[in-house]
């Protein structure tokens, strides 16, 4: 077969350069191989890609093996070559034309899809930039910035000024993100209402907001002596620091004024203090210094003061280690036999005659009637009680005795006899009563413990005055010191008179308590361990109102 092959090479100018040759072969081999009749120098073409053969004007193209040949766009293993047909072999296009005279076939071959690797390697700079893979910096920044601005600034600020907006945004808790920390446990009920405390924007929380609820909080000091009105509640009570309300509790705060009171409160009677361990004055308990009045005064424990209470009570006699002989046998008393902690454990309950003393010290006055006792603390009723008993005896026992002597009876003179008998009884009752009164109020009765006096109008007992609260400026709790024995602080075992004040001095406390920064082995004790702050009688509110 004689075939004309036109290989067309198109340049950039679009002008085709055609190389024309005629071959005369049995079959036309098409492929990348150098031995091919139509040599297609492109890596996408197989070494032996296709074959064209046939005769008598009927020619066919056959793909070799599984090589792909497209005829008019459709893959075909075998296809007849008709003039006008378009055949694709890899990137080449074969066009079949009318054969010139003397030839069997005319084939035009053109590379229509040049190998594109060059353009692939000419990678743009853009592809290498990280920015290509990320959203625009500017878009990210401004979008998120706007979100932060709206959510955390605009909405809360508008909500603070506009109740309507606040109501509308309530579900989103617009101020939640402004909360710098958890509110204290005691203030939890108002935690969600910022305006409970923060009333005016850009103004610090005012005392009035605190006092709206804290209506009974007391002043620290008498405003006449020192004016503390300039202080803000918040300067000592800090919020938004977690479940515990932070309260200023350092000694420095107290010592700032109490270290040199003359400077801030020249008229005060308080003594300067600079710390418990070294610079705290001796305790000054409130004592009854004169039972007439009575006159009470804070007296220092150095030198040991005496208290005039009008009571005689020798602790040592009651606390004998070998016990006390009583009607109920031998009894050994301890402190707790008489001293019972009061509610809360701070102070002891008052001593009552009936409860604490009556077990041994009976108020009976007639041996034959031990249950017939006089009431304690009511001298007026004492005489009536005694007279009552002897009148009863006179009415019952004496008359019976007299009637047993019939020889002395004179019949018909009963009324006169009765009269004489009654006068005798009255005289007897009177005599016995006087006798018993003298015994009762004497040194073996009331006088054992009390100061008694016989006055023209009768016996009197001087009123007893014992301080109910010795340390009125401090808070001492017996309940918190139960691991310490009574006698470690109170020298009752060796105290023989009730004039002695059995309170321990500061040295005793310092045995365990070492101030705010104690030495090793001692308990840290700040001012507030024993003293409270808001202790003045006046409420803050009244002082604020007065101002």
């Amino acid at each position: 077969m004689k075939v004309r092959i036109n290989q067309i090479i198109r340049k950039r100018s679009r002008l085709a350069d055609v190389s024309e040759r005629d071959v005369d072969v049995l079959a036309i081999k098409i492929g990348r191989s150098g031995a091919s009749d139509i040599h297609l120098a492109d890596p996408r073409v197989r070494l032996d890609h296709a074959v064209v053969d046939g005769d008598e004007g009927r020619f066919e193209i056959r793909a070799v093996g599984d090589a792909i040949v497209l005829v008019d766009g459709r893959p075909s293993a075998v296809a007849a070559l008709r003039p006008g047909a378009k055949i694709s072999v890899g990137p080449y296009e074969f066009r079949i034309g009318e054969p010139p005279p003397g030839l069997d076939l005319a084939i035009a071959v053109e590379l229509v899809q040049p190998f594109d690797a060059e353009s692939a390697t000419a990678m743009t700079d853009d592809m290498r930039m990280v920015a290509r893979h990320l959203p625009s910096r500017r878009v990210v920044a401004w979008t998120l910035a706007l979100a932060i601005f709206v959510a955390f600034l605009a909405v809360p600020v508008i909500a603070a000024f506009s109740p309507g907006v606040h109501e509308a945004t309530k579900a989103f808790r617009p101020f939640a993100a402004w909360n710098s920390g958890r509110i204290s446990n005691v203030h939890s009920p108002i935690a969600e209402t910022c305006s409970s405390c923060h009333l005016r924007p850009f103004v610090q929380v005012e005392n009035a907001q605190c006092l709206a609820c804290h209506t009974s909080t007391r002043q620290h000091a008498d405003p006449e002596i020192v004016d503390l009105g300039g202080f803000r509640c918040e300067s000592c009570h800090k919020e938004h620091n977690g479940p515990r309300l932070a309260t200023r509790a350092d000694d420095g705060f107290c010592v700032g004024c109490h270290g040199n009171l003359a400077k801030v409160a020249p008229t005060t009677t308080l003594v300067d203090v600079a710390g418990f361990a070294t610079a705290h004055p001796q305790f000054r308990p409130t004592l009854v210094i004169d039972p007439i009045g009575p006159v009470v005064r804070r007296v220092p424990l150095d030198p040991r003061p005496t208290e005039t209470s009008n009571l005689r009570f020798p602790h040592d006699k009651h606390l004998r280690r070998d016990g006390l002989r009583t009607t109920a046998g031998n009894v050994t008393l301890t402190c707790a036999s008489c001293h019972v902690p009061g509610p809360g454990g701070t102070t002891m309950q008052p001593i009552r005659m009936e409860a604490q003393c009556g077990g041994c010290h009976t108020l009976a006055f007639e041996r034959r009637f031990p249950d017939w006792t006089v009431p304690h603390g009511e001298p007026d009723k004492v005489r009536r009680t005694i007279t009552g008993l002897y009148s009863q005896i006179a009415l019952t026992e004496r008359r019976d005795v007299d009637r047993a002597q019939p020889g002395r009876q004179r019949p018909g003179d009963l009324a006169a006899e009765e009269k004489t008998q009654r006068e005798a009884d009255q005289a007897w009752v009177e005599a016995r009563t006087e006798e018993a009164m003298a015994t009762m109020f004497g040194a073996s009765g009331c006088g054992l413990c009390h100061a008694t006096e016989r006055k023209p109008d009768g016996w009197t007992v001087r009123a007893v005055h014992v301080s109910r609260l010795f340390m009125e400026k401090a808070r001492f709790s017996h309940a918190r010191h139960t691991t310490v024995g009574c006698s470690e602080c109170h020298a009752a075992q060796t105290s023989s008179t009730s004039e002695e004040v059995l309170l321990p001095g500061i040295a005793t406390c310092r045995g365990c308590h070492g101030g705010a920064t104690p030495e090793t082995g001692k308990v840290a004790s700040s001012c507030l361990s024993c003293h409270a702050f808001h202790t003045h009688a006046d409420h803050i509110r009244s002082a604020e109102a007065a101002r």
Partner: protein
Amino acid sequence: MHESFLTYKGFLFLKVAGLAGLLALALYIGHAPMDAPNGGTWLGYGLGTVSALLILWLAWFGVRKRRYGGVQPLKGWLSAHVYLGSALLVLGTLHTGFQFGWNVHSLAYALMLLVIASGIFGTIAYSRLPRLVAANRGRQTLEAMIAEISSLDRGARQAAMALDDKVNATVVAASERLQLGGSLIRILSGREPACRTAACLAHLEELAAKGTLGPEEGATLSTLVRLLYRKGELLHRARLDLRYQALLDIWLHVHIPATVLLIVALIAHVVSVFFFW
């Protein structure tokens, strides 16, 4: 001698930053507020004010850097930016008093950490990578590497033309598309797990090992192997180069937007604190 921004004036700003950090730390340790340490004590307000002003000044560097005009070098500024920015880590952290929560205050702090962390990344990148970039490139630019890869591809395709279809197909696959870049993760890794050039090379080496080829084909094959080996080496260097460029670039995509966010959050933080004082 070249002086880097890190060693500027004998570490002047490192010393300033170190002193500021130590001073803040000493004050914080000595500070015993009645409540827990927090941003609202006198020290808290002090550290907060200094930190906020420092943030604005540090951010101003970004504006200044983009301004033309003025010939004074920014090396001193950069040195101060880097070291004082690191000191902010100490000042800002102590300002918080270690009180954190889901609020705008901790948001500002977190953004500050993000800015500082990305800045430290950038500092390390700029102090280490340029040397690695130079060593990796040798005397070739990335464009020159790509051009050489391209010509090696052409040579390989030419050489493979006479070889078996199967071999040819792998060579074409390896050379028709430049496997460089791609996804961000791929760029940052500096690797190409499905490298066709490496696969082709392995295939050719396997073929050569079999020894079933004629002398002419064998010679072509060894030429091809040489070409592809060189290409593989160039590809590796080009990928490393892209990786280094990406590392030098990527932190700014965090540093700058986070700075903008930080400034907005900082404003919200300051306003909210004093709004509800």
